[in-house]
């Protein structure tokens, strides 16, 4: 996918002004946040499960080479063909080669974030292959030439009126505005594609080393169809997706579906091990699994390793006050919200996503809800440090920080400076107690809001006065 993270500030400002987006995102707070809070109460040992999930994911990363080789061995023994791709381009080429070799003309796709990373659809279409996204949200995105704004609900930023117009135009049928009717119309339109596709492409929520299995979690049933009906199935997965055993998948699923959509379980959990067996009535003749690096080994060796624990539930973005107000598009790549503010710089380069680690209030809602306890604010803080070290921030900001460090290490200077600022601030606030325009770099901050003026005394002055009164 094209990287537009450098435009974060402009696009965020634009989205803040959108009334339709505000309405669309209000569903997020009322449904996903509340839904998760209600359903995690079913687990009386939720925190123990979280802690165990964190440990299992860490252990898997610590033994990643061993588990991937084990996975490959078991998948191959079951008749799957395992491929490895160092980057997006290699992965895309592998998929196209498999498709060409099997004379594939039409592909149905179950949702894959890795496919979004690599721009797989576009690449296959350039190669003359028809690609149909089948997850309803992804289908809406594909038909409207848009990009996803959420990893679970790709079309969360679209209103039903927009979808109604889109379906009316693309399906050539009378315009419907009832959401149920629109959904059923999409069912009718997509059904023939499922039945006539030559190849299915799915992602993988997890790979299971013990059995050589790839598994996906879906609600719609498109994942089951994609992995069963066409004669070729290709599963694409990042190297970090591997877990040791079926038991590990089982207990982590209790966290995943609850954190993602507030469901005790998703409708379809599909575990696929190899292609059609000799006696099987159904299933693909060929089953390929492509294991993809695409920046992950770099993260594994960095101080951001913990981000690789991510199980892609989306809870961090659902709970993020920044995401809740601007949606996913300003983040400019595949992963929005707090996890995106870490993964995007990690995968595409910090210099290409300069504002993302700063697009956070550090409230730690994301860290609190993350089912595998990724310390997202800490990771963003590390990225902020790197930005300053690598001189990626504007010179004025760096100069300001240096001056502050110089003063903060000198208590006398600091307290005199603070006194001056407190007095000056009070004077600037006038009778209202509000500063309308800050000087210097602060002007950008007050362009869209007032700053409450200080009371005129510093904390240390008030503290000293209080102690004097008590004595």
């Amino acid at each position: 996918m094209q990287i537009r993270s450098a435009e974060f500030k402009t696009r965020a400002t634009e989205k803040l002004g959108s009334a339709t987006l505000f309405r669309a995102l209000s569903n997020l707070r009322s449904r996903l946040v509340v839904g998760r809070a209600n359903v995690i109460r079913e687990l009386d040992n939720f925190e123990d499960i979280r802690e165990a999930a964190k440990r299992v994911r860490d252990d898997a990363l610590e033994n990643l080479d061993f588990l991937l080789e084990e996975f490959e061995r078991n998948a191959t023994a079951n008749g799957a063909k395992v491929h490895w791709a160092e980057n997006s381009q290699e992965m895309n080429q592998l998929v196209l080669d498999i498709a060409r070799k099997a004379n594939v003309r039409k592909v149905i796709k179950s949702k894959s974030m890795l496919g979004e990373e690599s721009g797989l659809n576009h690449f296959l279409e350039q190669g003359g292959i028809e690609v149909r996204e089948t997850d309803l949200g992804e289908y809406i995105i594909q038909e409207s030439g848009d990009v996803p704004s959420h990893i679970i609900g790709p079309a969360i930023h679209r209103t039903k009126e927009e979808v109604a117009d889109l379906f009316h135009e693309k399906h050539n049928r009378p315009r419907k505005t009832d959401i149920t009717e629109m959904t059923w119309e999409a069912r009718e339109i997509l059904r023939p594609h499922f039945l006539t596709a030559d190849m299915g492409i799915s992602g993988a929520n997890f790979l299971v080393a013990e059995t050589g299995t790839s598994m996906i979690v879906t609600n719609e049933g498109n994942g089951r169809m994609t992995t069963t009906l066409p004669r070729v199935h290709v599963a694409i997965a990042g190297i970090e997706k591997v877990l040791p055993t079926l038991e590990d998948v089982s207990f982590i699923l209790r966290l995943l579906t609850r954190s993602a959509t507030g469901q005790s379980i998703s409708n379809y959990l599909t575990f696929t091990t190899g292609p059609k067996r000799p006696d099987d009535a159904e299933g693909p003749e060929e089953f390929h699994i492509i294991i993809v690096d695409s920046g992950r080994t770099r993260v594994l060796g960095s101080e951001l390793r913990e981000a690789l624990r991510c199980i892609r539930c989306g809870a961090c973005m659902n709970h993020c006050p920044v995401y809740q107000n601007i949606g996913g598009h300003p983040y400019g790549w595949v992963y929005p919200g707090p996890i995106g503010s870490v993964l995007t710089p990690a995968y595409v380069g910090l210099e290409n996503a300069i504002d993302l680690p700063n697009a956070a209030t550090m409230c730690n809602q994301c860290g609190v809800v993350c089912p595998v306890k990724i310390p997202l604010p800490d990771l963003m803080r590390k990225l902020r440090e790197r930005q300053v070290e690598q001189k990626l921030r504007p010179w004025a900001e760096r100069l300001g920080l240096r001056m502050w460090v110089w003063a903060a290490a000198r208590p006398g200077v600091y307290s005199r400076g603070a006194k001056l600022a407190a007095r000056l601030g009070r004077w600037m606030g006038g009778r209202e107690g509000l500063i309308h325009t800050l000087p210097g770099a602060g002007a950008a901050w007050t362009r869209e809001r007032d700053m409450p003026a200080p009371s005129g005394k510093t904390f240390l002055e008030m503290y000293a006065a209080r102690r004097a009164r008590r004595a």
Partner: protein
Amino acid sequence: MSARDNILGRIRTALGRSAPLSDKQSLAMRGKLRDHPRGPLPSMGWEPIPRFKERCVMLSSTVDEATHLGDVPSAVARYLRTRDLPQRGVCWPEFSALDWQSAGLQMAARPAMGDDKVGLSGSYCAIAETGTLMLLSGQNTHGTTSLLPDTHIAIVQTSRIVRSMEDAFDLLRKEHGHLPRQVAFVSGPSRTADIEMTLVLGIHGPYRVHIILVGS
């Protein structure tokens, strides 16, 4: 160097190792793969059968009960008639010998096609914790039966209701020793909330799932 070798090499470098784990080093992980220990389970202080029924209803499935397998055709006929659904469909071969004709139904023992309206399947086992069916692929257990028709009817033996997914995998390990091509856990009718987060049943899979418990 192949992509595979490069990736594994980079993983090892990132983990601060220069070579694959020796047999001794990988002992703990090998032991884990062999023994597949469970993660922490939540408390399950409920009776499996009532819990299964309750959970099915919460997932928008409907539940009926039959004493014997022979009572299933009339239960199916009743279900289809009250909802004004077609009196014909496809079923797993293991149910083809039931007396469908007397119940006024035509059930063909074959995989489902895109235009079949009713599919009747069994279930390898069922999970009480979540109201879930565990379906295995195979020669006679067609996956399309529970996927393509608008209405999916599933026969569940009460003796085959287990508590958790962990129990279900234990049963599979004990009875089969290996995984079939596909294990599908199905929990209620297909659903989506991709338009304005409004829940709609029946996007690509069945609109309705009806469970008939046998042996209660």
